[in-house]
């Protein structure tokens, strides 16, 4: 199915959030996720099932003021 990851369209073959992150190459432990604008804790990724058209944001620590 197609989902949007950080504003880019991706075709994924996995169904849960944690599997999709692995498939998409997000291997860093220093990431946080939000699905369709809602925060998804790391502990809930395995149980979070994706559906086509979902908007996933994968954020990481960055410089800030």
């Amino acid at each position, binding site marked *: 199915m197609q989902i949007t990851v*950080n*504003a880019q369209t991706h075709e994924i073959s996995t169904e849960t959030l944690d599997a999709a992150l692995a498939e998409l*190459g*997000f*291997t*860093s*432990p*220093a*990431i*946080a*996720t*939000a699905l369709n*604008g*809602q*925060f998804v*804790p*790391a502990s809930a990724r395995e149980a979070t099932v994706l559906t086509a058209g979902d908007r996933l*944001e*994968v*954020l*990481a*620590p*960055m*410089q*800030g*003021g």
Partner: protein
Amino acid sequence: MRIYDTDISVPMFLGTAQYPSPAILQQAIRASGCEVVTVSLRRETSDGTGAGFWDMLRETGARILPNTAGCHSVQEAVTTAHMARELFATDWIKLEVIGHADTLQPDVFALVEAARILTADGFKVFPYTTDDLIVGEKLLEAGCQVLMPWGAPIGSGQGLRTPDALRAMRAHFPGVPLIVDAGIGRPSDAAQAMELGMDAILLNTAVAKAGDPAGMARAMALAIEAGRMGFAADPIDRRDMAVPSTPVLGLAELL
């Protein structure tokens, strides 16, 4: 200074953006002696640059204050705060809800609403706000225990646009930690803010974009300390006319 049950001895918070290199950022943090640095959250890149930055920052030993920079709505700010709490393992959040893209002025109505939601959820909110007293009251009612009024628009380096309003905040909120966030350009601006009785200064661009960031970080730290000591030492009032400092009594007649 005590904020949310945490003692902070160095009244300077330093932003981590816009430095020429990570090494210079580290030098600036060390030169300032500051204990708190601000960070942000942005989209992870495929090369995992976020993790490297995070590792480098942890090496400094500084306490992390994540921000919600760039958020323009309550939902964006609240979601970002939750992501930051998990990622940085802190319940501190510098809450920014921007109302205007050009001035980066806070949307104080959304700010108060977001602050209420986040404090109810256990966050320790550091709200980036204006110098408006009523907004400050609403933020305190929402559960904030610190206020961060702007000195001037973010990154402008204009110094304090409305020092009288900051003085009024000091008088109106005597026991509340006040941190000037944004607008500081030079050490004298930082000293002025501290002389008004502010408790700390948060700055980034003025240090990061200086020709010598580490040198400027040190200069800011000294100015902040001088301003703090000056306020504590109770400065004299201004006078319109000269008043001789040398005694007039006993002056010789030599004509």
